[in-house]
């Protein structure tokens, strides 16, 4: 407030109003106060006054000195002005002089300029004139880089003034030299000694010389091709002498690394080059070059693969899978690690080759297994035919051993093969990890192609013996029996074992992979083969015995025979043979509780048949001339008994096998008897023979009534075919038979 509105009562203010101040003072103060105030003011006034006086004194000297200085300056300036005027006039004279000089020198200067220009031109011309010779010398020195450099230097001029008559000669000279130079450079391509680096250089130079790039690149490829094919030829030559590892190494270090080098330099030269030329052109060219290169690489790789394939094919004697696998692994790694070509995956082809090798190996193994099997069978066949001459017992003892050793050797052999093949899928092998390979190899090749195929072969071979025996009588029927048992044993054990072993070793999960031949299937074929073989064995043996019986009946004159005194030798022979078969079969097949089956199975039938048998006996012994009766009985009997299947399926036990053989033999006997006509003694001979057979054959069969029935039929038929049917006393028959 006070600042805005200066208080008129303040003594120090400029607006001080003495009257107001006084009025105020008079109003507010008493006398005494006024008096004091007055004295105070007086005192202040006095101090102020004295202060002012001191101030004036102090500043007076300063004023005086200042004035002096100013006076001095005024004088100095006047002097300077005159000197400046002098300088100006001097300068003017200098300018005029220099102008004068300039104008006099102008003429010579232009002349000098012209002269220096002529000089440089002359220098260049000299270079041009020297160019052909220098180029030549460079050529001779083989310093092509400089030569090209020089030429490029002169090129533009030559182009520009080339049509001038004086320069034409030079130009043509240069061109001829240049052509030579290019030739020389191109020669490098075909020079087998030239290193890749040199090549690159040459190509680079040629490119600088504006040679068409596409032509160059194809030329380059042609030359590279030549060299690679040399390598391939070398490989081919070597392929027969060297083993596979060496071969693969040679291929890797020679052909493959060369190819890589070619590809790399090609890339450098043609594809990844920073060209100054217009961009779209270079793009097109790059594409072109890339496809060229791809084709080239593809072709060469294909050739190489073919070579490797044929080598691998050559290598297929089972020799050493380990080495093969190692070589293949090296090969595969090498192929896999190089990406030679952008859009072709060579590792797929390599995998194919490896798969092929695996398949071949499996096939070779299969072949060996087959051969081994055939060999063992032949061996067994021989040992079956020979020792029989030496001693019956010896051979029979051998039979079981033969079988078990056969099975053992087959199983061991297969195990060995599996172990050998497992090398293919060892974890450290690179290609083994590829599912493509693994699937094809483990499942298709090893499991299906080798193991399953071998099993099928086994059964097929075994079966083929059925047909063989029919045509070749030298094959012992025992072999059939043995093979049948082999199939059976395989079915019951080895098939499962081998399959699971395979699955385990090759990590096959049968549940997952569809299309696998399962164990059941193989077992079934094994079983079928065993059955077929056994049936055939029975048939063959039956036919052998029947043949004997047939001949014996057919060749004899039954009408004119003497009273029987002995059992015919043939019957003894039949019994002997059947006993021998029994002994042989017993070695391989268990005797499955003859007696129990006997009693249980035949409880009912035994009864009825034995009853009818008694009737028979009584019928014949009473010698009733009425044959209708016996026929009736026989027919009645047939009605109540079951039909006898002659060639029926046999079971896998001794009893069943022998029953089969005996059935066949006796049926034949009967048919033969029916074709003959007998005299009294002829009939009696048959009676003796059948009785003898009855005495000895019953123990071989499950149901002895079967034998009784068949023998009764034989005797019945003989009675029918007899002109004078009188049977012998049973007691006499007994005596004759006991005499043997």
């Amino acid at each position, binding site marked *: 407030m006070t600042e805005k509105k200066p208080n008129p009562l303040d003594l120090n203010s400029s607006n001080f109003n003495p009257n107001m101040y006084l009025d105020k003072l008079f109003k507010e103060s008493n006398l005494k106060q006024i008096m004091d105030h007055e004295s105070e003011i007086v005192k202040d006034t006095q101090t102020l006054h004295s202060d002012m006086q001191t101030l004036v004194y102090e500043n007076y000297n300063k004023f005086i000195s200042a004035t002096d200085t100013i006076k001095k300056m005024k004088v100095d300036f006047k002097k300077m002005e005159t000197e400046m005027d002098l300088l100006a006039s001097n300068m003017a004279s200098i300018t005029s002089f220099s102008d004068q000089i300039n104008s006099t020198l102008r003429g010579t200067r232009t002349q000098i300029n012209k002269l220096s220009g002529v000089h440089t031109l002359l220098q260049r011309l000299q270079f041009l004139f020297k160019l052909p010779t220098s180029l030549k010398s460079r050529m001779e020195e083989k310093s092509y880089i400089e030569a090209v450099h020089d030429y490029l230097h002169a090129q533009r001029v030559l182009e520009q003034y080339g049509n001038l008559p004086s320069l034409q000669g030079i130009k043509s000279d240069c061109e001829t030299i240049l052509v030579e130079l290019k030739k020389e450079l191109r020669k490098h391509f075909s020079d087998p000694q030239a290193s890749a680096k040199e090549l690159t250089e040459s190509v680079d130079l040629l490119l600088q010389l504006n040679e068409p790039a596409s032509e160059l690149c194809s030329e380059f490829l042609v030359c590279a091709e030549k060299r690679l094919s040399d390598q391939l030829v070398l490989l081919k030559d070597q392929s027969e002498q060297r083993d596979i590892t060496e071969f693969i190494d040679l291929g890797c270090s020679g052909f493959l690394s060369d190819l890589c080098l070619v590809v790399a330099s090609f890339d450098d030269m043609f594809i990844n080059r920073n060209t100054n030329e217009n961009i779209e052109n270079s793009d097109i060219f790059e594409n072109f070059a890339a496809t060229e290169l791809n084709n080239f690489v593809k072709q060469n790789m294909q050739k190489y693969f073919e070579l490797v394939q044929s080598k691998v094919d050559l290598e297929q004697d089972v020799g050493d899978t380990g080495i093969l696998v190692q070589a293949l692994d090296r090969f595969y790694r090498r192929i896999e690690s190089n990406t030679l070509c952008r859009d072709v995956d060579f590792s797929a082809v390599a995998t194919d080759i490896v798969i092929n090798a695996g398949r071949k190996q499996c096939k070779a193994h299969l072949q060996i297994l087959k051969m081994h099997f055939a060999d063992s069978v032949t061996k067994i066949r021989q040992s079956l035919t020979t020792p029989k001459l030496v001693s019956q017992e010896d051979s029979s003892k051998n039979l079981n051993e033969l079988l078990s050793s056969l099975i053992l050797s087959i199983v061991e052999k297969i195990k060995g093969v599996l172990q050998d093949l497992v090398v293919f899928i060892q974890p450290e092998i690179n290609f083994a990890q590829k599912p493509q390979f693994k699937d094809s190899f483990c499942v298709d090749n090893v499991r299906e192609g080798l193991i399953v195929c071998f099993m099928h072969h086994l059964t097929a071979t075994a079966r083929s013996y059925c047909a063989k025996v029919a045509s070749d009588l030298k094959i012992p029927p025992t072999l059939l029996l043995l093979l049948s048992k082999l199939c059976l044993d395989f079915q019951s054990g080895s098939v499962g074992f081998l399959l699971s072993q395979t699955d385990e070793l090759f990590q096959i999960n049968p549940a997952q992979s569809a299309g696998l031949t399962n164990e059941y299937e193989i077992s079934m074929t094994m079983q079928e083969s065993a059955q077929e073989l056994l049936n055939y064995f029975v048939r063959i043996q039956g036919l052998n015995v029947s043949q004997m019986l047939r001949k014996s009946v057919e060749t004899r004159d039954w009408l004119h025979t003497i009273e029987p005194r002995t059992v015919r030798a043939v019957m003894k022979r039949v019994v002997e043979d059947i006993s021998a078969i029994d002994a042989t079969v017993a070695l391989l097949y268990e005797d499955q509780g003859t007696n129990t089956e006997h009693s249980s199975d035949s409880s009912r039938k035994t009864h009825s048949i034995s009853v009818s048998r008694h009737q028979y006996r009584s019928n014949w012994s009473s010698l009733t001339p009425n044959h209708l009766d016996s026929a009736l009985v026989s027919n009645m009997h047939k009605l109540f008994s079951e039909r006898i299947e002659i060639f029926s399926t046999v079971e896998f036990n001794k009893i069943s096998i022998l029953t089969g053989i005996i059935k066949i033999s006796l049926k034949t006997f009967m048919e033969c008897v029916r074709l003959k006509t007998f*005299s009294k003694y002829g009939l009696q001979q048959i009676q003796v023979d059948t009785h003898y057979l009855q005495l000895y054959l019953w123990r071989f069969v499950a149901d002895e009534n079967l034998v009784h029935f068949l023998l009764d039929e034989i005797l019945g038929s003989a009675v029918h075919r007899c002109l004078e049917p009188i049977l012998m006393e049973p007691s006499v028959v007994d005596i004759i038979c006991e005499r043997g």
Partner: protein
Amino acid sequence: MENENSVIYGLEFQARALAPQLAETEKIRFLIGTQSLKQTTNQVHLVEFNEEDSTIKTSVFNHPEGEIWKLNTSPLDKTSLATCYNAVSNDNTCCMKTALYRIPQTENPETVENLSLGTKFETDQYGSEIKTTEFHPTDLNKAVTVMENHVVFWDISGEEAKSILNVQLSGKNNPKFTTGKWNPHQNCNQFTTATETHLKTYDVRSGEVAWNIDNVHSQLLRDLDYNMNKQYHIATCGDDGLIKIWDFRQTAQPVYSRSDHSHWVWCIRFNPFHDQLLLSASSDARVLISSAASVSSENNNDVCIHDETETKQMISDGPLQWCEHEDSVYCAEWSPAEPWIFASLSYDGRLLISRVKKTLKYQIML
């Protein structure tokens, strides 16, 4: 298993001779000869089958000379038949003979007449075993008798047969003929015989072997039959239980082979009209009709390929139908009058006249 289509005719005697009456093409007629050593008179039964009401009419004729092993009828003369028989003499010896007979025209079915003797054959000089006497298919005056190791060609125009040609079989182990048949093709100039396991065919004009197939079966060859519709095909059967069809121009392998019987096969016949049907009889007591469609004359697949409108489903090879007997069946014959009827005779004297199953019949006909 009795076939519903079958009619049984039982004889009192054992029998192994059955023949269709070849010359009779109207009525279905079969002849049976009994085989009984001790019966004083063996018989020939003429069985006529009435297809419409499935009944049988029989006439019986006596054959007093002996038990009949083999019976054949003339393909030209209805009344003529040939038997091979075993004549028993009083001193308990017997010998085999063969003769031609005529069936008498009988008015009275109650009486049993004797067959009247037609032509006698003098066979003693050729051997004691007579296998069969076969009429020439087209020549009324010719016949052949197959003996154990002779084949004798006769002129039978007179009372006594005159031998025209005689072929002797010789070789190691004294081989024997089993049976023989005329080749109905090639002007009937060939006669095929079965000996052991081989087929031997003679040219009638010269007596030379025209062609032969060795080891037709692995065991004894029992019977053979020509395909009437396919001139190079011949069916065989034997003790190995096999039925085979051979093309005798290529004898290395049979063109057809089946093993459906479980014992010796005694008889095999092509159906004369539909040769894909093979009839076979075996001592496993079964008669079997098998399909041989793959080699039949009706299988034209190789000639004309797929005539879409008339493509017929070919019956696959193998057994089609069977009849069971109680005893061994030695004979089975098609009826020459009716292609769907056949007869089979088992040793126990039971004749079964059966029809081919309807389904099968339609399958072949349509």
